[in-house]
């Protein structure tokens, strides 16, 4: 036994290995977190570049720059890369970095699997992107890959897409098992469930959602694979199957998936708002129960994405009411954030600015979601730019602002240097203004009837589309500033203190800045 302990303690004196092998072989949660974050940043720029192509094409009516076929590929891969490549890995990266430090654990429970679950991601996206250079081009059926667009009418490269999705799913599942096992088994003594930091709580629930729905997605793409290559007819009416079945299976995965992309942001924003309001979070217990309720409800609302497929009235009503029910726990969270700020001693550093913008703009996205939940009204809104406005409001100033806020909040802990506050605030204001220029007019063109997923549009939408495109270009360029701020903080900047932020609560603020390679080898005592 003592030999084991000895060889273990030898490791610390070594520190990280040198060169590329440090990153290839690493089992350190901080290294893997860093890898995840840089990978998602790369994917953010790749998916963003595709969005720029889309907005350039839509700058004016008529066919401008790319062919409709290529436009469809841009549209599809923008969605796939942003969802599976940017937002999800960014959250897993934050989880890797922060959860062990928040619960006082020395590392993740399964460090080698952690390494594997990261390193198969570049493989998956390599496969996905390689389809662009093959005959028939990349996936072109929308990120929801509805059958028969993705089966009968798909380009031949769809098989590569299917395997890429399988690998992404395996990565997410392994990551989730790791996170749950870490949280359930490795908390510091005295840290009961109801003392757990909210980011850890949101990730615990998110990981359960991932484990429940990623296998269903794997099943859906497996059925597609069998329909395409093995003559089955899951989604083919000629053989007794049903294309509508695909939509049910997809959205059974898809709706919990959209909460997977927002719940960890709720956790991040909760920490930031309490820190910069210098007050403990209002209604901690109700926050935990609200997250759990949202997660449970997410399993029974999926068909609100398909109100127009021809459901009976009872189905429409069921999915309409359950969807509206979600507004209650979400409202609880929003009011708790507002109550935390109320009479707080607020200061407006960059993470706080992004968090306040998150609360305001995410609520706008939530309200347009309520409008879409009204089944009879949805027949008007379905597949218009109103839907595009809705989900971009919850994903860009929602999920992405949450991630950016988290990066600014914990960056000094990672690099040991404070970021440049002036540049950070510039980044915030540029992003905040341009994100609204981009997505707010989409509500109007959507309500006026502009359909989504089209490379051209009627002339009456021209002015708004030009405004949208200009906003999108500014937003895209602004994110280069974010890259610069991060790089600057890595190489220079004021030395950060251990606490970093005045009065910041949580175990991660008790370790030195930058966080040493190994933390909490002796578990801290939580009172």
């Amino acid at each position, binding site marked *: 036994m003592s030999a084991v302990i000895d060889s273990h303690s030898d490791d610390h004196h070594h520190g990280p290995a040198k060169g590329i092998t440090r990153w290839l072989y690493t089992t350190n949660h901080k290294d893997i977190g860093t890898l995840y974050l840089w990978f998602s940043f790369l994917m953010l720029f790749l998916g963003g570049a595709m969005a720029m192509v889309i907005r350039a094409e839509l700058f004016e009516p008529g066919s401008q720059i790319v062919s409709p076929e290529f436009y469809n590929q841009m549209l599809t891969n923008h969605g796939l890369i942003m969802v599976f490549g940017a937002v999800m890995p960014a959250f897993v990266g934050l989880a890797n970095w922060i959860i062990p430090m928040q619960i006082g654990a020395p590392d993740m429970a399964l460090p080698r699997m952690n390494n594997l679950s990261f390193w198969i991601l570049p493989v998956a996206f390599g496969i996905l992107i390689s389809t662009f250079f093959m005959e028939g081009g990349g996936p072109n059926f929308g990120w929801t890959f509805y059958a028969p667009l993705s089966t009968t009418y798909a380009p031949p490269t769809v098989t590569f897409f299917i395997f890429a999705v399988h690998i992404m799913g395996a990565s997410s599942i392994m990551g*989730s098992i790791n996170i749950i096992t870490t949280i*359930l088994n490795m908390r510091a003594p005295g840290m009961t469930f109801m003392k757990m930091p909210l980011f850890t709580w949101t990730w615990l629930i998110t990981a359960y959602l991932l484990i429940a729905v990623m296998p269903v997605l794997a099943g859906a793409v497996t059925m597609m694979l069998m329909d395409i290559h093995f003559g089955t007819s899951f989604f083919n009416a*000629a053989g*007794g199957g049903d294309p509508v079945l695909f939509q049910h299976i997809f959205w*059974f995965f898809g709706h919990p998936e959209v909460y997977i992309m927002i719940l960890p942001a709720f956790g991040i924003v909760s920490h930031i708002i309490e820190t910069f309001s210098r007050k403990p979070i209002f209604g901690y217990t109700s926050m935990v129960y609200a997250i759990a309720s949202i997660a449970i409800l997410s399993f029974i609302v999926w068909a609100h994405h398909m109100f127009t497929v*021809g459901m*009976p009235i009872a189905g429409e009503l069921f999915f309409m009411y359950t969807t509206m029910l979600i507004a209650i726990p979400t409202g609880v969270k929003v009011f708790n954030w507002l109550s935390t700020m109320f009479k707080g001693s607020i200061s407006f550093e960059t993470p706080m600015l992004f968090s306040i913008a998150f609360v305001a703009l995410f609520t706008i996205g939530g309200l347009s979601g309520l409008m879409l939940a009204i089944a009879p009204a949805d027949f008007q809104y379905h597949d218009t730019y109103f839907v595009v406005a809705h989900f971009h409001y919850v994903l860009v100033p929602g999920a992405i602002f949450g991630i950016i806020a988290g990066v600014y909040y914990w960056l000094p802990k990672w690099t040991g240097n404070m970021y440049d506050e002036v540049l950070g605030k510039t980044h915030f204001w540029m992003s905040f203004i341009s994100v609204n220029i981009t997505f707010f007019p989409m509500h109007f063109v959507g309500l006026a009837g502009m359909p989504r997923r089209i490379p051209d549009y009627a002339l009456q939408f021209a002015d708004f589309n030009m405004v949208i495109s200009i906003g999108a270009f500014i937003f895209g360029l602004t994110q280069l500033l974010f890259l610069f701020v991060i790089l600057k903080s890595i190489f220079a900047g004021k030395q950060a203190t251990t606490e970093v932020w005045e009065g910041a609560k949580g175990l991660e603020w008790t370790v030195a800045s930058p966080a040493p390679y190994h933390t909490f080898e002796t578990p801290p005592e939580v009172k």
Partner: protein
Amino acid sequence: MKAATKTNLKLASLVLGMFCFGFALVPIYDVFCEITGLNGKVSGPTITEYDENFNSREIKILFVTKNNENMAWNFTSEKRILDAETGTAYTVDYTFENPTDYPMVAQAIPSVSPGKGAQYFHKTECFCFEEQLLQPGEKLTMPVRFIIDPDLPSDVPVLTLGYTLFDITESHIKLQASN
């Protein structure tokens, strides 16, 4: 067993279970559609015994035939419209013709609308129960025999029986090759 290993095993079995659940959704969906009559799925060749003194009423039945894309056959029904009574058996003939110069296999898929009326549409015989193989230029007439259940809700004055004809020659060849 270590606590962490236990948690891992539980989570791994949850993953496996949810993967199977994804596939279980296929039969669940079918059963659900059949029970509720959603999707216009009809309940199949059930012959129901009726009371002697059921109340029959008049009902209009429309017949719609449609080819799936790229399907070259001529596919028509002898009638487009039928004034029928509930509880009485009717026969309607459908004609298939393969105008191409190669043999083809086809499958007709039925759908009854409105969906809530589907479960009251009882077919005792239908060409849609089997696949049709036609040689080049061959013509075939086949019947549908059906009874409309007298229990059909009174707010359904019209039933539409639609058939879509699918070309399944390719998957037929694949199946035969694998057998």
